């Protein structure tokens, strides 16, 4: 009887570095997790299983090829809940920062006049193609976040997404402020928390890998004044923010608001 009550999960990858799946695979209790869920499909880890009916689909990667597009639509159709896992799936990821570039031109730079049998384009987040139910942020997500998401679903409830920035965790830990005390281009004020301010903890300014906060909250204004006062130029900050956040909602607005 118990077997039948296990939630069915599918773990899928579109165009990405496969880091979110690797994060999932290397969760310390992965064997226990695999015993408590029924994994219907996980190509990176298993020779069995295709895209099948399941309760929860975890999808990493951005939609970059026609095949990705077909797959994500099929995954949506067959899954009750879809979780966008990681920066590529939520915001388009690093490859998504090419948005606005002339695709034909860069394709030609790489492949010359040759044509390739498959069609591709600039990577886009899942939400451009399907309805996404939850976001599991990170590049890759933290181990405790992966476990938290699995555990909440397992208990029949749902995970709560964080709506406060890396700065909150950084301050709480009492780390020196890289932005104010060391004049470094730290993106902590606008990036979604959950990493426990990993990078500021070792004196490295936040590069924004978890993506921008989903809501336009007050910190942006404070950041604007701080960056300006510190003399960090617009182009440098823009380029830096765009590594992970180019496709996130409001990013243009944020940058304009920050620098005018």
């Amino acid at each position: 009887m118990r077997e039948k009550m296990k939630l069915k999960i599918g773990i899928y990858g579109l165009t990405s570095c496969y880091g979110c799946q690797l994060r999932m695979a290397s969760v310390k209790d992965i064997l226990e997790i695999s015993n408590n869920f029924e994994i219907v499909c996980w190509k990176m880890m298993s020779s069995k299983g295709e895209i099948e009916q399941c309760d929860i689909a975890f999808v990493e990667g951005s939609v970059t090829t026609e095949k990705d597009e077909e797959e994500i639509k099929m995954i949506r159709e067959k899954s009750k809940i879809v979780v966008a896992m990681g920066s590529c799936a939520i915001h388009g990821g690093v490859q998504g920062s090419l948005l606005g570039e002339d695709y034909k031109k860069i394709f030609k730079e790489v492949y010359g006049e040759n044509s390739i049998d498959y069609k591709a384009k600039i990577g886009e987040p899942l939400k451009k193609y399907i309805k996404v139910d939850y976001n599991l942020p990170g590049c890759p997500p933290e181990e405790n976040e992966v476990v938290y998401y699995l555990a909440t679903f397992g208990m029949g409830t749902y995970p709560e997404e964080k709506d406060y920035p890396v700065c909150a965790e950084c301050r709480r830990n009492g780390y020196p402020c890289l932005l104010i005390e060391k004049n470094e281009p730290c993106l902590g004020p606008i990036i979604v928390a959950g990493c426990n301010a990993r990078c500021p903890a070792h004196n490295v300014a936040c590069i924004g890998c978890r993506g921008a906060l989903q809501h336009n909250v007050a910190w942006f204004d404070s950041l604007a004044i701080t960056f300006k006062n510190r003399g960090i130029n617009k182009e440098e900050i823009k380029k830096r923010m765009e590594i992970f956040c180019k496709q996130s909602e409001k990013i243009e607005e944020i940058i304009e608001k920050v620098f005018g």
Partner: protein
Amino acid sequence: MKIEREIRNDHLARIEGKAGVVVEIGEKINARINVTEGPRFFEVLARNRKYEDVPSICSRICSFCSIPHKLTPIEAIENALSIEVSEQTKEIRNMLYFGNVVESHALHLLLFVLPDYLGFADAFSMAKNYQDLMKKGLLLKNFGAMVQEIIGKREIHPENPVVGGFGKLPEEKEIKKIIYGGKEAVRASIELVDFMVEYEYPSFMNMERNHLSIKPYSGYGVYGDEIVASDGNKFKINEYKNNIEERVIPYSFSKGSYYKNSPFMVGALSRLVNNGSLIDGSAKDLLNKYSNFIRADNCFANNFAQAVEMVYFIEKIVEIAEKIKIKKEEKAKGGKSGHGFAVTEAPRGILIYEVEIEDEIVKYMNVITPTAMFLPMMERDAENMARGMWNNGYRDVELIGKKVEMAIRAYDPCISCSVHAVKK
């Protein structure tokens, strides 16, 4: 041409990234490996950006080898800007790099390869019957991960290594953890090598092959500035474009590389073929004991080579950790413009970065990854396997397909890595 059989798998399981394989069996047998993972244009992403931000972008090329894709662009940038890092930084980077090789090899052998050998669809089902093996594998994987966590401050895509040094140096108590964990890991890795020799390599895969690797600066290390080939040739890294030619493959988003107009191998086996004499410690004893398992002519020897390398790299990590006395130091600094190269030994083989920087802004970058290098040879081995099986009387397409996949997995392909490259 009438095709008798076609074997098609659009999404190979248990590899990193997305690729398929098509084998046609007719008058001739030929195989195509279709890399369907979308192009990600990392060289374009790096352009017109401050050099400090570039290694963080590059590390996202691949998660399994995010350390090589972080440390190699750092090395290329330092080469371009004449930044001389301290001996201490070099040693800590070595530990970090070796930790990644250990984790990557452990993951590959445990999760991707051994289920094949033992007849399981995945490590989860294998774990039920082989608890002890799984425990050893996880111990090795976790040790590699711990080293990366301690030094890189994150196991995947660590942001602590930066141009000129590290954001934060590891503390003494953390180094002690590495020594303690390493001693246990050495034992597990030796036992894994003993386990790997249970398997015979199919002799129809034997074929003359060229192996490319670096000539390490010291020992059996992962840094160097010269590439050596098993045919006796060698060349400096800044000559790579004259020796390694990349070609577009119409059915793949990845390019394929050629050396002297022919496919070639890189990776653990190539390193042992070219540099095996530089190995010491327990790994040397194992190499002597099992010398006939390092076969330059058979791709399956690559998995055995990975197991031996794990022993070596774990012992080296412990050796460095026992010797090092961490001193506080400032990050090294250098110029603002220049043209630099770097080549290192990523788990899957040589990884080349070239970078041009003008006034702190990256103007040009080129990357050639191991998977793009061995792709044409891997395709040939997929054919060798299908042909060997067919000629030996096998007609079960599913079985031949499974064996073709095993030949591909022997290379430990990293498909995410392969999708790249900008011409100049």
